[in-house]
């Protein structure tokens, strides 16, 4: 299956970004990967060249979590913390999130919903920002350290629109 069929990103209303992705695994495994520190540290690493030296999770309603990423080439660090508002294993997590040196105002609220069908899991990841300006700032710069995010130029997105429209 092509990646484009299982991975979507859209804006919803003024303040939300919604990501959906299908994983070839039952949802309890996906849930573990999202909630167990020793597993989170293996994938939620940010752009290439970053590691995650700190990952602390107190997985219960009202419990805190803290992630710290580190740029392996220049040693720069970036931390993010939050509080779990809802934890329903293995299907739903709601948590606040705030970067230590946030480049956008306010706290965001992330919701993760896992739906399993035939051994595959559809993830819907919604992040609600405090304002439209904030949401758009995050879209513009998913992680603050822009140099690390210097990906290639836009090639092709919005598949229904086609490549020619974007290069017009």
């Amino acid at each position, binding site marked *: 299956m092509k*990646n484009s069929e299982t*991975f979507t990103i859209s804006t919803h209303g003024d303040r939300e970004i919604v990501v959906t992705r299908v994983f070839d695994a039952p949802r309890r*495994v*996906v849930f573990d990967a999202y909630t167990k520190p020793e597993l989170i*540290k293996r994938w939620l690493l940010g752009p290439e060249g970053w590691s995650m030296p700190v990952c602390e*999770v107190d997985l219960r309603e009202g419990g805190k979590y803290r992630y710290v990423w580190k740029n392996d080439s220049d*040693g720069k660090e970036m931390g993010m913390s939050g509080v779990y508002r809802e934890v329903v294993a293995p299907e739903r997590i709601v948590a606040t999130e705030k970067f230590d040196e946030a480049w956008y105002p306010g706290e965001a609220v992330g919701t993760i919903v896992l739906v399993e069908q035939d051994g595959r899991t559809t993830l819907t990841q919604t992040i609600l920002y405090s304002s439209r300006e904030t949401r*758009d700032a995050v879209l513009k710069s998913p992680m603050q350290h822009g140099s690390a995010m210097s990906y290639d130029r836009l090639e092709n*997105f919005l598949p229904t629109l086609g490549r020619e429209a974007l290069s017009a």
Partner: protein
Amino acid sequence: MEPNSYARSSVRLDATFAALADPTRRAILARLAKGEASVVDLAQPFAMSQPAISKHLKVLERAGLISRGQDAQRRPRRLEARPLRDATEWLEKYRRFWETQFHRLDALLHDLQAGDVKIEKKIKKNKTAHQRGDHR
């Protein structure tokens, strides 16, 4: 970014996203990417009346995604690529970020199911994931 220009670009982006939310409007843009076209030309591939198409065109025009050509008779519409590029570049950057994460997650999920990585059933209370040596 300076707040005023930031707010302006945000308003514009919002109009762009709203305009792109509709499949007919995306199809109109894809058609205009091949060159300018009149309302009659644009209405042809859709099972829609000209007034219905005109309504979509107004939304696209307000979002700055299309403009009108000089020919007063045909009033052809043409694509304005800039706002579209801005919006898609932002989404693209965000998509690339998550794509990198999800590819690693795919690999991990595979390893977990193959038994190459064991999930600890009981998490020991005092075991901290914090590697002090790494953290300056």
